[in-house]
């Protein structure tokens, strides 16, 4: 009998909590559901929901693939029709959703943009990785690795890029090149080689540069596939102590390469933080808190000696609280 009373009391408290306090609806729209990166942002968003302890409800939406710009826009239209209190969106297109987002903003829906900016719309805050800063970190780590190896800071450095004309990659490459020029002016960055995001072609490019330049001392690879290609060549030829390589992103093969010494550092974005902060910012906006127009969500620099402590960064799934 007492147990029943306790249960009834608990139920009424829960009911009271639900009725008494407003639960804010926050829509969380990702670019694509098929990629690890966006799954990580979702973990961040859902963790934030967990930490808000019932004050907000986060609903996740997104097209299966990043190529589905139209689908994402129509998802956004449907979401706006449900009149959520806030929308956290990583838009694939910087222009396609402008009108809908702006209309939503004018209706009083709080808008938090993550990862990709959208032009011509009102918004409360924009959170993204400053990729130029990440590229600069890569240059720092490359020089550090060269010094640690006792290699003189002169000669050539190969830059392998996954694709031309992608802004985030261009930013990474420019950040790397500019910083390297500053801290090691005698290191010459070779013309960028684009490899269509193909591991095999990235390995080919690394092989070719090694043949062409006997004074080559290092590589920067601007994403995971190029990083793996470069790491393969270094591994297969046992060049770990001759050629220093630094790469962007993380995946199982890159982590393996970091562990084996083929890569000296990984520059990793913080998708979990982006999702978490996105939801928290939305919550703050709903409550009228002032927000910065732009927040750099930062990168992690991971080297072999901190690899073991970095697993929560490399695998945000392990941070699931829900």
């Amino acid at each position, binding site marked *: 009998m007492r147990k029943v009373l306790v249960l009834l009391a608990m139920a009424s408290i829960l009911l009271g909590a639900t009725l008494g306090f407003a639960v804010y609806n926050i829509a969380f729209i990702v670019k694509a559901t098929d990629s690890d990166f966006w799954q990580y942002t979702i973990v961040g968003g859902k963790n934030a929901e967990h930490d808000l302890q019932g004050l907000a409800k986060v609903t996740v939406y997104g097209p299966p693939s990043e190529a589905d710009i139209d689908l994402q826009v129509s998802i956004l239209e449907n979401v706006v029709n449900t009149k959520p209190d806030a929308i956290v969106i990583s838009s694939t297109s910087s222009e396609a959703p402008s009108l809908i987002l702006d209309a939503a903003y004018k209706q009083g829906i709080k808008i938090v943009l993550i990862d990709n900016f959208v032009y011509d719309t009102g918004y409360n805050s924009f959170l993204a990785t400053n990729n130029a800063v990440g590229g600069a970190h890569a240059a720092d780590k490359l020089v550090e690795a060269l010094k640690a190896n006792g290699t003189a800071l002169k000669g050539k450095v190969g830059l392998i890029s996954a694709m031309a004309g992608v802004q985030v990659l261009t930013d990474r490459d420019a950040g790397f090149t500019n910083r390297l020029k500053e801290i090691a002016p005698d290191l010459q960055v070779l013309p960028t080689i684009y490899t269509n995001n193909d591991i095999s072609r990235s390995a080919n490019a690394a092989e070719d540069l090694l043949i*062409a330049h006997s004074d080559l001392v290092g590589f920067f690879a601007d994403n995971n596939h190029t990083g793996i290609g470069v790491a393969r060549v270094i591994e297969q030829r046992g060049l770990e102590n001759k050629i220093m390589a630094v790469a962007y992103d993380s995946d199982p093969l890159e982590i393996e390469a970091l562990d084996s010494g083929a890569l000296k550092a990984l520059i990793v974005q913080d998708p979990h933080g982006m999702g978490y902060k996105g939801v928290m910012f939305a919550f703050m906006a709903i409550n009228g808190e002032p927000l910065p127009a732009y927040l750099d969500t930062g990168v992690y620099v991971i080297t072999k000696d901190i690899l073991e402590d970095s697993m929560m960064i490399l695998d945000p799934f392990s941070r699931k609280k829900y």
Partner: protein
Amino acid sequence: MAGKRERKAFAERNLLIILVVMWVFLAIATKGNFSSWANITNLIRQSSINGVVAIGMTLIIITGGIDLSVGSIVGLSGMIYAIMTSTRGDFKLSSFWGIIIALAVGALVGLINAVAIHDGKVPAFIATLGMMTLVRGIVMYVSSGRMVTGVPTEYRQFAVDEFLGIPALAWTWIILALVMIFVLKYTKFGRNLYAIGSNEEAARLSGINIRFNMYAFYIVAALFSGVAGLMLGTRMAAGVPTGGQGYELDAIASVVIGGASLSGGVGTILGTALGALIIQTIRNGGNLLGVDPFIMQIIIGAIIILAVFFDQFIKSRKKGEGLKKLFKRA
């Protein structure tokens, strides 16, 4: 028939001349870097994966068809192998069974292509375009869009192995190409291929079983893509969901530069191999010289068109037609 054979020899001789001129130029321009043994072995190894895909593509183009699904089959076979053998996976099969299953799955895709094209009368371009998307979808689905690691060591080792100073990957290509040169020249399979590609109706009337042969061509072509997928897998040491994406374009370019005709009946394995070498020579040479990557892309595109143009030009001259007539016809 004699004219065609002459033309083939002609195309191959010209390609060889182009290749030698390029090599001599690059050897001088790179001060010997290009012609170093290390780079020659790089070049052949780098050409080998596309080279093997292109062997299969040659068969299909000789039938007068096209196969846009090869890149996806490359991805599929590499992924199936990785899933079957991964020490972190559910199956943990040996390399042998991994290879058998990967190739069988690839061959099945070829069979479906053939049925759709021959029995379903779906144009090859459309059927294989659909299959390209469908198979890539399967690759994504079975891998959840993530890399599959933990492949056997001997598999990874194959990408590094050498025999007589030549990489194992290069040997794979060379041996497969030699076998197919022989098969196309001296076997019924080869004769049927050219007969069906030149004139399907005539081939049918002369008693060739078109259905059986078409099935065989598409299955064999898919098997080559499957082998290429395994070769790529050894190089990446994992199953990668996007592996092989876009490989159909390099394969088609190699075949076309190699002198095959998209209207069918014409094409050789040797020509295709030279075509694959020419494409990779431009990439490799461009990297060695530090040529602007966008300029390199322009050059590769131009060479595809020029190769076909010269081929047509020589053909029309052999027939006693002038350049004028060539333009008129085009």
